[in-house]
């Protein structure tokens, strides 16, 4: 599903440039539940941005769903994001003046889907994350865990190939964190590829495979005990 070969990325800082990713090789197959671990500055967010087509790479190859990603302009990137990727962010990134159901239906709007159909699908996904009765609430009227579940529903709405979650539990307490992780596991059990970025060990341990990143290189890539036992 995601195949990365010798990926390099650096950012210019004044005259110098900061080499963030130093030749990564990573292969994530369909249906996997992978977490990227690393401290801040390890390059994990940069990796997610490149995988999520929010940023380009300098060198190496990136294949998404078998399609080689190169020379993307903003328009193509937007269409690919809409089609293949669902995002979950640490700070939820819901649009504050839109209700839960409107937030969920937004990516469908950009697919050009009609209003009634959008509404119907959005409600289905809100039901899936257990928030159907909150459909007409604004984000400010929802708790942190509920907001993140709306974001999950929004990520799922377009039936993407991969869910990209950037510190999905970073802003949540341990109880709500657990419920969000349960949701992600459930999605994964339904066959969705889930790609989580975290710096929390106990979150990473709930996934099937942990890739550890340090200073722009992969230092370990192993299946978790949970997966091995299963």
């Amino acid at each position, binding site marked *: 599903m995601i195949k990365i070969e010798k990926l390099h990325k650096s950012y210019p800082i004044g005259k110098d440039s900061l080499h963030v990713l130093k030749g990564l090789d990573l292969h994530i197959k369909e249906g996997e539940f992978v977490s990227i671990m690393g401290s801040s500055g390890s390059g994990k967010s940069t990796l997610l941005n490149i995988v999520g087509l929010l*940023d380009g790479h300098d060198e190496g190859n990136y294949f998404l769903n078998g399609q080689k990603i190169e020379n993307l302009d*903003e328009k193509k990137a937007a269409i690919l994001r809409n089609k293949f990727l669902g995002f979950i962010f640490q700070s939820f*990134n*819901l649009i504050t003046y839109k209700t839960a159901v409107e937030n969920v239906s937004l990516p469908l709007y*950009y697919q050009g889907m009609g209003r009634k159909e959008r509404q119907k699908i959005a409600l289905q996904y809100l039901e899936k994350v257990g928030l159907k009765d909150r459909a007409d609430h604004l984000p400010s009227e929802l708790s942190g865990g509920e907001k993140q579940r709306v974001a999950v529903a929004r990520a799922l709405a377009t039936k993407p190939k991969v869910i990209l979650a950037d510190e999905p539990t970073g802003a949540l307490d341990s109880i709500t964190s657990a419920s969000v992780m349960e949701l992600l596991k459930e999605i994964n059990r339904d066959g969705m590829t889930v790609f989580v970025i975290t710096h929390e060990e106990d979150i990473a341990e709930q996934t099937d495979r942990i890739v550890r990143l340090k200073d722009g290189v992969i230092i370990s890539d192993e299946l978790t005990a949970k997966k091995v036992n299963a």
Partner: protein
Amino acid sequence: MFDLDRWQEIFQTLRKNKLRTALSGFTIAFAILLFTLLFGVGNGLKHTFEKQFASDAVNSVYVYGGRTTKPYKGMQSGRNIQYRNDDAKFMNEKFEDEIQFFSPNIQRSMQVIYKGEQNRYTIRGVYPDYQPLESAVVQDGRFLTYLDIERRSKVVAIGRLVEKDLFGNLSGLGKNLNIEGISYKVVGVFNDPGGDNDERFIYAPFTTIQGMYKPNDELDYFGLTFNPKMDVDQALAFSNLLTKLLKEKHNVDPRDQGAIRVRNYAEGTRDVQSFMMVLNVIILFIGIGTLIAGIIGISNIMVYIVKERTKELGIRKALGATPKSIVGMIMLESIFVTALAGYSGLMLGVFALRALGDTLEKYFILNPSVETYVVVGATIVLIIAGTIAGYIPAKRAARIKPIVALNDE
């Protein structure tokens, strides 16, 4: 292409961000309101001036006689110049093309009696051509005719205020007035935009008055209008030539300013025209300035709005919004708010001007209003302004990388 979904998205954004929408709308509505009021009041000033100068035909020329102030060709100074009927003939022959309306005039103040009412009025013996010269408008009956001149009829056309003085609320038409012992029939009542004085005149056939009050064929002065096709310079050249020829005819020193006096309204008209032009330029300058200030205002607000919405736009992009759809959304919002707010400002201004009406007449503002083409033009300018105001920040918003936008707090 009308995209209902896109409009619904825009309406929602505007509705859910009322303060923002109101602020940007207010700026443009206020600018247009000021623009309209300014234009309207400027037009009111113009109307006042137009009315002032509509009291007589703008192309009038009056030719008066007087006493010579210089001895000439063996004749002493202080000699009285008396116009006669042959002067009228002379002028009409010499200036057939230049003269439009022409009337000799005899003017006397006389006692006028109708039953118990009496008063002194200025009686003018004139030709029918005098009516357009004075810009008099007949409201009842008729003005004098050439038949009256020929027959030396004892008929008069009286001013509206003469009728009011002598007949009260009754019509004077067909009644007989006693003017210094002679009976005249009232054949017409006129009003005059020149005001009260001009509406207290009584006009009688020139031949009637001349025969009764003047020895031989003497007369007092001439009123005429020059051909309106002539421009100001041509008109002044015409009246200068007229003066010169009349001086020659009456043996007056060419440098003598007293004996032959020609008053040409074209001179005043020129001053008024240049004054009006300056007024127009000032109104236009301030009006355009106000409009530009409004446009800059809305541009600033749009820049701020896009900045404020950076994160939202980042989210939209992450969810699959193309740069084109971002630009389109922001621009449509901008145009919609600008056009709607501008139009309300315009309507508010138009209604305010209508409500003002003539209440400011004593400040020389008469019927303040804006022309339809100004209204339509300003609306078009607004829509263009909204497009430009929206385009630049929209383009910038579309260029922001989603990753940068998402990290914006």
